[in-house]
């Protein structure tokens, strides 16, 4: 009884301290911003007001939507290509070294801005260039995770599957893919995080639209309020996507 009560009070205390820290940080920001010019550090009130304004603006919503669908398409394409490469290296023995020792290390250590610049040189500014860069950045993460999943597949289960049917497609559909789901999900989760945090760089160099483009425009115009508001909008969209899509998916498939 006593321990339960203390644990409840300590949970409450944790929460109070946690939220208190947020309030404290906001206060510190406000104090700091009061002494500084607006183009260096705008105050929290101004940023929040701009954030609300932005979410009411059709133009901003369109940019946000553009970025979001690019991210989603890129994640899907990267999962397909990375998964395809992992399957190739697993099922065609002589391709194993090609994928593991040539393609993977190169993609994995390729700097993301390198892709962005190459795409800016090669393609017209637009959706295709941005998606190309995002896919190129995300492929190694998907490849590594799905390859890990393939390596960890239970051999005995596969043997059992082969004793039931000889059709490879059936085994793939009924056994391999369901066993890969957790790894695919963790690949999706990682790719989602990287896409919003790092792959947006694609929109700085080769796009006439998207949140990255908006951020660069605000920064060159020294409009710090809009810039910070866009940053926070990205944080909000990232968290919303994670809570609304990725966590439910993981919960749905975690029990299998």
């Amino acid at each position, binding site marked *: 009884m006593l321990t339960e009560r203390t644990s409840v009070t300590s949970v409450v205390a944790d929460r109070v*301290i946690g939220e208190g820290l947020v309030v404290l940080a906001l206060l510190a920001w406000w104090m700091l911003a009061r002494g500084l010019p607006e183009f260096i550090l705008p105050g929290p009130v101004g940023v929040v007001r701009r954030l609300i304004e932005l979410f009411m603006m059709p133009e901003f919503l369109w940019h946000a939507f553009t970025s979001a669908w690019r991210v989603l398409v890129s994640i899907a394409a990267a999962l397909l290509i990375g998964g395809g490469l992992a399957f190739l290296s697993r099922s065609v023995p002589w391709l194993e070294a090609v994928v593991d020792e*040539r393609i993977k290390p190169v993609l994995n250590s*390729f*700097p*993301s801005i390198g892709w962005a610049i190459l795409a800016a040189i090669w393609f017209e500014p637009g959706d295709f260039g941005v998606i190309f860069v995002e896919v190129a950045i995300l492929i190694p993460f998907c490849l590594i995770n799905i390859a890990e999943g393939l390596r960890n597949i239970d051999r005995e289960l596969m043997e059992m599957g082969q004793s039931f049917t000889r059709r490879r497609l059936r085994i793939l559909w009924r056994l391999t893919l369901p066993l890969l789901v957790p790894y695919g999900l963790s690949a999706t989760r990682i790719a989602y*995080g990287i896409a919003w945090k790092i792959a947006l*760089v694609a929109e*700085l160099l080769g796009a006439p639209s998207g949140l990255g483009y908006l951020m660069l425009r605000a920064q060159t115009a020294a409009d710090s309020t809009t*810039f910070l508001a866009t940053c926070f909008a990205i944080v909000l969209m990232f968290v919303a996507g994670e809570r609304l899509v990725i966590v439910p998916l993981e919960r749905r498939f975690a029990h299998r």
Partner: protein
Amino acid sequence: MVDTAIALAQSSRSRGLFARRLAAHLFMLLFLAAWQAAALVAPSYLLPSPVQVAWRLWSFVTSWRDLGHLGASLYHVAAAIAISFVIGSLLALIPYYVPLLRFAIERRIGPFLNSFSAIGWTLLSIMWFGVSPLTVIFAISAVLVPFALVNMSAGLANLDAEILEMAESFTRQLWRVFALVIVPSLYPFIFATLRIMFGVAWKVTLTAELFGGNSGLGYMINLSRQEFDTATIFAAIILIIAFVHSMDHYILAPLQASVSRHYAY
């Protein structure tokens, strides 16, 4: 009988290994050939030929000015890893010693740092610090801190409670327990963290240098982009791939493996 079977199996495996090596090298040759063929068609500011890039790579390695840029990038990466490792580990240690702050750090500070975009940090630090090495180091560190925080928290959560109890029965000095028990049991996590941070740092460094640096490979790439000197961009990218991969493959991975063998249980 058995011996020959084993020997046979081994030889067939080594033949398989050889075939795989061959396939990998053939793939490289094919890739280079395709690149050369494409370069014949495309103008050199779009796609320089492999030979051009090789020449540029050679002049890169022999030029002190270019090597200086590589050194600047290395310095940015090393400084940012050191700073963010210390900050991230401290943030991870706070909830361990002050459980009251667990919610604040794991549910408020962690997710915030984790979802703030790298470009945001970069452009923000340009506004704050101007174009300087400080900007670059700040931007990389801000991106790396959540990685250190998440990994070191996982390490602390995996500490063996029985070993800690044993340690507490020997001494009451928190510092002694920390230095002699907690830190050694964290070694595998420390190395894993450093390895991940090294990989991510290089992905972000060039971006930060391109927008907010006045030295480093990213700055160099930006200059060559404006001059349509695509060969230099390719040379810099190849140099980075070679450096990052060999560092990870020949130094960090063996180091991590040996540390894990000693300390993991």
